[in-house]
């Protein structure tokens, strides 16, 4: 069995890699948002899945504010589930704001990990 302190250090390392991956996924979310008008239903589902994953994993690493920001994105995407005609013009600024909030949380954590 491994010791707790060593485990916590390894968890912190994995958490840092998760953060780096999440920063990359923010660019993906922004790209999906740009492509929404042509592919709203599938695009919204992908946004929901990415946000759901970030939300769950963020909380495991103790990044609660980051997880909450991802949850906002997930909930916005879920609101459109089952809709035949998604109002892309209405939801895009809301999603942009939520993605910006997620980005800000990532930057905060990244900054604190550097010090």
């Amino acid at each position, binding site marked *: *069995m491994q010791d*707790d302190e060593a*485990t916590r250090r*390894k*968890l912190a390392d*994995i958490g840092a890699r998760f953060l780096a991956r999440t920063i990359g996924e923010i660019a993906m979310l922004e790209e999906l948002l740009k492509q929404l008008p042509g592919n709203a239903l599938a695009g919204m589902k992908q946004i929901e899945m990415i946000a759901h994953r970030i939300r*769950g994993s963020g*909380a*495991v*690493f103790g990044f609660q504010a980051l997880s909450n920001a991802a949850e906002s994105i997930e909930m916005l995407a879920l609101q459109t589930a089952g809709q035949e005609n998604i109002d892309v013009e209405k939801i895009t600024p809301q999603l942009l704001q939520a993605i910006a909030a997620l980005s800000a949380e990532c930057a905060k954590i990244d900054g604190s990990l550097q010090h």
Partner: protein
Amino acid sequence: MTIPALKRVLYIDDEPDIREVVELSLGIVGDITVTTSGSGAEALEIIPQFKPDLVLLDVMMPGLDGPATLARMRSDPALAHIPVIFMTAKALPQEVDRFMGLGAVGVIAKPFDPMQLGTRVQQIWRAVIHHKAS
């Protein structure tokens, strides 16, 4: 009654960082060989070779999701006996009931405490063994 040790666990989740965390977490409680898989489809190929004592299965995954993966296991006589624990953010009582109704032996809520996951999995494993013995 002597509880046979939990030796081999397969964890299935599309999130690579969580796969690493679970592998690390299960290492805290003992000598468990953990293999991970990024998808239900891949896991169904791994299981016959790896022969896990227990499968931990994420619910929400692209492609074959957790419930669909479990359904495939239960319909295969070679895999049907393997106990499966769902790991999910959707852990409201009615959802837990649904997952147990699908044939899972337990449901672990996400987010989980990595330092406690191994203990929780061991608890469910012991309950499974007791149930089989009675």
